[in-house]
């Protein structure tokens, strides 16, 4: 461990070295380090093994705002929401044993979705390690597969270096979660106060790829010769802060842009070159035309299976250009004809210089025609149903009422796909959802975190009745800190997405997907949150306006069709061009 902690290159101010140093505890070293890294909010839950840190925290109220959640999973999802909308690193405190293991789901979620987090866990005294002590768990080995990096610190002198390294690793290269496990003796130990030095280099870690002009030229050559070029924009564009460059690139070259789930908002939904959302429940045009384009330009996306469907049927006719910061993603799923290993912003800036101005109006028109087919067969019915309220019409109204400018945080399931399809995101970092891991229960705490990061911004959580109940305890956090989150639960009394698959692929055998729910309105009111339930169409818009205009938090339950399905859909094992606009005809 010492090897790693001492081999960082950091800047030291000589004049500091000669001054007499006062003694402070390892816990104070930790908190001073966090303040030096620009942290002002921590989401956490105390316990025995992290008590010295919490005791020290008592004296830092003017510098560090600690939000006490109701479950450690709530803390880490809140930190994720905070990081996603602000671009800052989210910080979590948890105790040892079950406190730490309660973070595992969130760590896995943050790792696959590239969210920068630093999690601090308390640990038993160093002399008790390996003795099966009370609340002792091997956190480091447990979280190796779900962190970008982790380390255990058993001496106070190593705390500052570990924190510096953690923040540097979390927020550079392909961002991700880092965990520091600090033993109790290290938290208590008194050492001389030192000036905090940020980490700027690690011998074995090269997060910033050097842009290769040969790679750019090869990619530009393919793009310039394309007749039907097509950009797929992923979250990498957002993480790099490259939305402006993407818009400039698309406008110069005339190339249409579609977005992955996590890329929504990277390119404005009302831009004439925007052709839609792609993937398993994406728009018809973007999916069909994936197998019609001649050059596919993937930027900051990783060809997840929800996007590609059956890989053997994916864009076989096209030349593939892949721009990504993570070298391990290039050629991992789809073989490339040209690739640029670079940060998205830098790569796009270079491509803008090398690519010719172009016009692909006729090609973009093909997307429009296909999307019109989808509108006639699917969207029109979704927005103008004859019977029960649909999820689509709720989201459509929400999008119109907020002008596509709210931060919308979704959970996982049918409502997530519907929101991704129908909320017209205009701005970067306004779509927050669990993508790669698909963690139910993500939205409520993540929305809390997002609101803490952007208190002036409208933040709306859209959740299904299943996912809501996984982290509903965080209503307590919302109540305690007056966090003005708007919560919409789309209630169909089912685990809807699983039910849809059971209907389509398992002969309608609804095995353990129907749910008996409590009175959600009374539950919200028990937490002093104003609440309303809507079942009729004529009440919907007024209720949504009331929710959006409410000063603080507000809960709105909307009862929607029990067995409504989300279409279009690319069935499992099918290619993107096999996308269904309606349920397959039943065989007799």
């Amino acid at each position, binding site marked *: *461990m010492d090897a*790693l902690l*001492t081999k960082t290159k950091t800047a030291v101010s000589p004049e500091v070295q000669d001054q007499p140093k006062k003694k402070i505890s390892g816990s104070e070293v930790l908190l001073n380090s966090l303040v030096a890294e620009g942290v002002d909010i921590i989401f956490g839950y105390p316990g025995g093994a992290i008590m010295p840190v919490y005791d020290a925290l008592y004296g830092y109220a003017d510098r560090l705002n600690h939000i006490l959640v109701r479950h450690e999973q709530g803390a880490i999802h809140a930190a994720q929401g905070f990081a996603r909308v602000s671009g800052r690193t989210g910080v979590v405190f948890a105790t040892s044993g079950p406190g730490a293991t309660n973070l595992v789901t969130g760590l896995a979620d943050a790792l696959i979705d590239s969210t920068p987090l630093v999690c601090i866990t308390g640990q038993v005294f160093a002399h008790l390690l390996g003795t099966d002590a009370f609340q002792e768990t091997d956190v480091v*080995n447990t979280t*190796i597969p779900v962190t970008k990096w982790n380390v255990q610190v058993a001496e106070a002198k190593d705390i500052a270096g570990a924190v510096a390294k953690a923040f540097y690793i979390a927020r550079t290269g392909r961002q991700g979660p880092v965990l520091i496990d600090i033993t109790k003796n290290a938290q208590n130990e008194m050492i001389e106060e030192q000036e905090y030095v940020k980490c700027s280099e*690690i011998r*074995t870690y090269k997060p910033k790829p050097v842009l290769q002009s040969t790679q750019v030229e090869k990619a530009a050559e393919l793009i310039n010769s394309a007749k039907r070029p097509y950009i797929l924009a992923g979250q990498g564009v957002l993480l790099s802060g490259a939305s402006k460059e993407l818009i400039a690139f698309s406008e110069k070259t005339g190339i249409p842009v579609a977005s992955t789930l996590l890329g929504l908002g990277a390119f404005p939904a009302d831009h004439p070159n925007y052709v839609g959302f792609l993937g398993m429940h994406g728009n018809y045009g973007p999916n069909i035309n994936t197998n019609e384009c001649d050059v596919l330009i993937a930027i900051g996306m990783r060809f997840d299976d929800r996007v590609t469907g059956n890989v053997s049927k994916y864009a076989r006719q096209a030349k593939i250009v892949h721009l990504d910061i*993570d070298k*391990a993603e290039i050629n*991992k799923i789809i073989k490339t004809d040209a690739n640029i290993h670079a940060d998205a912003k830098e790569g796009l800036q270079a491509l803008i210089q090398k690519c010719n101005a172009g016009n692909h109006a006729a090609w973009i028109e093909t997307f429009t025609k296909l999307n019109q087919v989808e509108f006639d067969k699917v969207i029109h019915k979704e927005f103008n149903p004859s019977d029960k309220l649909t999820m689509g019409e709720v989201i459509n109204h929400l999008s119109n009422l907020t002008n596509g400018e709210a931060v919308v945080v979704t959970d996982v399931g049918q409502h997530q796909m519907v929101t991704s399809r129908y909320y017209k995101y205009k701005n970067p970092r306004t779509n927050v959802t669990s993508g790669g891991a698909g963690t139910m229960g993500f939205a409520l705490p993540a929305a809390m975190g997002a609101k803490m990061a952007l208190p002036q911004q409208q933040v709306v959580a859209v959740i299904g009745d299943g996912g809501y109940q996984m982290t509903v305890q965080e209503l307590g956090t919302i109540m305690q800190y007056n966090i003005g989150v708007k919560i919409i639960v789309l209630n169909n009394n089912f685990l809807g997405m699983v039910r849809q698959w059971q209907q389509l692929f398992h002969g309608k055998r609804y095995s353990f997907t129907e749910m008996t729910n409590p009175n959600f309105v009374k539950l919200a009111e028990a937490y002093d949150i104003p609440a309303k339930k809507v079942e009729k169409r004529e009440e919907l818009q007024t209720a949504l306006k009331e929710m959006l205009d409410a000063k603080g938090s507000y809960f709105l339950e909307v009862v929607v069709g029990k067995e409504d399905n989300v279409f279009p859909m690319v069935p499992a094992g099918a290619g993107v061009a096999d996308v269904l606009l309606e349920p397959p005809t039943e065989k007799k």
Partner: protein
Amino acid sequence: MEIHSDNNFSVINRIVNILNRRRVRIKKLVAHEQEDDFKRGVAVLLLFTTEDMMEKVKHQLEKLIEVEQALYYEGSGLYCELSAKHTEQIV
């Protein structure tokens, strides 16, 4: 595969986790600190897999913060040569 890394607690775990995740069979493994610098280490692994998988695993290993470099070669004979070379340095 020859992996050069920092010598840190759990570094072997981290390397083996990547291989396990991909179900790459480890036939032999030798790992040790560098003689002239105990803060660095080398691992030599004999793996049973395809070249395509080796290329993918190489990049995933090089993503590990502690790993400086992962090199791969074809042929089990090279395992004996590389592991002997590093073992001789220690002895």
